[in-house]
C-alpha cells in the first residue's frame, strides 16, 4: 500500500517552495494571457492560496485522486500535471489535457488522476464521495481529495455528499479553501454556524488549518490522508486562506469593491510564497526560481504553439461511444 505518512523529509521545504512558486508564476502568466485575449474564458486565479494545493498534494501519491474546482490550476500543477498541457487547455488547443474541451473551468487529467472540476459549485464533493466508495471497494488504499471553497458548504448536494461519506466511512478528504468570499459574498453572511461544524454534523472529523503555511497544511493533510488510507474514514479540513486577486479576471474590469484594504494587507503579509521561501536557503531558492521561470516560459511556448481544434470536430467527444451529437440543421 502506498504510504503518504512517510513523506521524504529530505528537501521537503524546497519541494513545497518549488510547487508554490510554480503555481504563482503560472497564474501570473495566465493573467497576462487573459489580458492578451489568448485565454477567452478568463481565469479564477488562486494566487494567495498556493500553500493549500502544494501542501495537500504533497500528502498524496500518484494513485490518489483529486477533484478540483473552478479555481483549480494550482491543484493540477501540485498533483503533477504538465504545465504546458494545462496551459494549452486554458488557451483551447488540441494539446490541452482535455483537447481544449474543458478549458480553465473544467480541467481534468486522468493521466494524473485529476478526475475533473464540475462547474456546479459543491457538487464535486458528492462526486468525490462516489469515487472514494469505488476506491474503498477496490481496496488498493487509494484516497480521494475534493477541493472546494467556502461558498460550496451551503450547497445541498455537498452536504448530502458529506452525509454519505460519513455514513459509509469513505476514504475522502474534503478540503475547504475558505478564502472568506464566494465571489463577493462574505463567508460570515452565508454560513450559519461554522464550516467545521458542518463536517462534524455528519460525523466527519473536521479541523481548521492555517492555509498560508504549506508545511502546516501538509501535516494536517498527511494525517487525514493516512487515516483515510487506513480505513479511518473521511475528514474535512477547513483551510484559512485568501485570494490576492479578484474572484475572476473579470474583476480587472469591473473593479468590485467588497474587501477592506486593511484585510487585504493583513493577508498579503502572510504570503504562502514568502512563508515557504524563508525556509529555503537563498542559493537553492534562486536555482528553483530560475528553473520555474524556464518551465513556465516553456509551458507558454508549448501552449501557444499547439494547433487550434478543427471546428469540424465540434461534435466529437459528446459521447464516449462516439455517437455524434445530432446536428442543428438538416441537410
Amino acid at each position, binding site marked *: 500500500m502506498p504510504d503518504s505518512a512517510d513523506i521524504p523529509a529530505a528537501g521537503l521545504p524546497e519541494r513545497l517552495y518549488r510547487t508554490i512558486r510554480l503555481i504563482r508564476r503560472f497564474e501570473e502568466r495566465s493573467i497576462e494571457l487573459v489580458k492578451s485575449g489568448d485565454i477567452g474564458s478568463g481565469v479564477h486565479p488562486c494566487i494567495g492560496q498556493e500553500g493549500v494545493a502544494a501542501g495537500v498534494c504533497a500528502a498524496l501519491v500518484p494513485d490518489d*485522486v483529486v*477533484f478540483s474546482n473552478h479555481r483549480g490550476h494550482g491543484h493540477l500543477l501540485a498533483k503533477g500535471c504538465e504545465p504546458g498541457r494545462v496551459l494549452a487547455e486554458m488557451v483551447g488547443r488540441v494539446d*490541452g*489535457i*482535455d*483537447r*481544449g*474541451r*474543458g478549458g480553465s473551468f*473544467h480541467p*481534468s*487529467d*486522468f493521466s494524473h488522476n485529476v*478526475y*475533473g472540476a*464540475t*462547474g*456546479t459549485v459543491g*457538487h464535486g464533493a*458528492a*462526486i*468525490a*464521495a*462516489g*469515487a*472514494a*466508495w*469505488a*476506491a474503498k*471497494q*477496490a481496496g488498493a488504499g487509494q484516497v480521494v481529495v475534493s477541493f472546494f471553497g467556502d461558498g460550496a458548504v451551503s450547497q*445541498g*448536494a455537498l*452536504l*448530502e*455528499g458529506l*452525509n*454519505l461519506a460519513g*455514513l459509509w466511512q469513505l476514504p475522502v478528504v474534503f478540503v475547504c479553501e475558505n478564502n472568506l468570499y464566494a465571489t463577493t459574498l462574505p463567508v460570515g453572511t452565508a454560513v450559519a454556524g461554522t464550516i467545521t461544524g458542518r463536517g462534524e454534523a455528519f460525523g466527519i472529523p473536521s479541523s481548521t488549518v492555517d492555509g498560508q503555511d504549506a508545511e502546516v497544511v501538509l501535516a494536517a493533510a498527511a494525517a487525514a490522508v493516512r487515516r483515510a488510507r487506513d480505513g479511518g474514514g473521511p475528514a474535512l479540513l477547513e483551510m484559512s486562506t485568501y485570494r490576492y486577486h479578484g474572484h475572476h479576471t473579470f474583476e480587472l474590469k469591473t473593479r468590485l469593491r467588497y474587501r477592506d484594504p486593511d484585510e487585504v494587507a493583513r493577508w498579503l503579509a502572510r504570503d504562502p510564497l514568502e512563508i515557504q521561501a524563508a525556509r529555503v536557503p537563498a542559493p537553492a531558492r534562486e536555482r528553483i526560481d530560475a528553473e520555474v521561470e524556464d518551465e513556465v516560459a516553456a509551458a507558454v511556448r508549448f501552449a501557444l504553439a499547439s494547433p487550434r481544434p478543427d471546428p469540424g470536430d465540434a461534435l*466529437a*467527444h*459528446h*459521447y*464516449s*461511444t462516439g*455517437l455524434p*451529437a*445530432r446536428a442543428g440543421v*438538416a441537410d
Partner: protein
Amino acid sequence: MPKLSYLKALNRALGDEMERDPAVFIMGEDINLALTNTTHGLLEKFGPDRVIETPLSEQGFTNFATGAALAGRRPVVEYQIPFLLMLVFEQIANQANKFSLMSGGQASVPVTYLLPAAGWRSGWGAQHSDQPYPLFAHMGVKTVLPATPADAYGLLVTAIRDDDPVVFFAPIAALGVREDVEYADLGPVPLGVGRVHRPGTDVTVVAVGHLVHDAIAVADELAGDVSVEVFDPRSVYPFDWAGLARSLDRTGRLVVIDDSNRSCGLAAEIAATAAEELHLVAPPKRVTRPDGAIVGAAPELDVALQPNREQLTAAIYKVLKSGL
C-alpha cells in the same frame, strides 16, 4: 414458453448484468426490500457491496454514481418517482452527460438511471405522474422507454453496458405486460433502433411505452377498414429516424400518440422532423397530454388528461381524410 413480465424482465436484466460484470452495482431507496420489485433477490445474491441502500439524497447519490463511474464502476441508480429525475436533472444533463465532452474523451460515465414508475399513478396526484423523458432528449441524454418485456430486458442490458449515461423509463402502465419468451432468446437491444409491431400501409402510428399496446389495439380494431403501421422507436434518444423514414415512405401519413406533455414533447420532435425531413402526404397529428400535471385525487380528472384510444382513432381518420 415461460411468460415474462415487464417487471421481471427488469429484475432479470439487473441480475444477469451484475452476474456478468462485477463493475455493475445498483443503488437507490428501499432497494434492499425491493419496494419496486426490480431488485428482488439481488441483495441476497450479491450482498450489500453491490446493492447499496441510500438515504433520501437523490442529488448526492446521483453525483456519487458519477464519481463511481469515473472510477470505473457501472452504477445503476433507481428512482421511485418521476419527479425525482427532475430533482437530479442538472446532475445528469449538465454534469454526468458532459464529462466525456469536458474531458476531451478521457472520461466516461456509464451510469444507468432507472425509473420503474414512469407516468400515471391513479389518484396519486399532481406530483407522482410525470413523464419527463423529453427533457432528457432535449439535452441529448440517451433515453429509452421500452414497451415490452423483451425490449425492457434488452434495453436495460444495453443501457448498463453503454459507456454513456442512459436514462431508462419503465412506464407503470406497462409493468404488468407479459410476453412468452425463451430466456435463451433474450439479449441486448441496440439503442436508437425502433421496431414495427404491426406493419401497415395507410398510416404510421408512432407510440412509445405503454401506449404502444393501445396503438396495437386500435390498429387491430381498425384492421380491414384502415391498415395501420405501429412504429415503436423504443429509444427516445437517439431516435431511429431511418426507421421512421422507411415507415413513412410506405404510408406518407403520421399520427403520434405520446404520454408526455404536448409543448416541446416527444411528439413535437417527431412531427417536426417528419414535416421537415420525411415523406408526408398529409399533415401529421399529435395525441398527447396537455401541458398540465395529472390532476389529483380524482381519477376521473386524471383520465380526462391522458391520451386515449378514442383520440387516436379520431386522429387516424383525420389524417386519412386530409392531404397537403
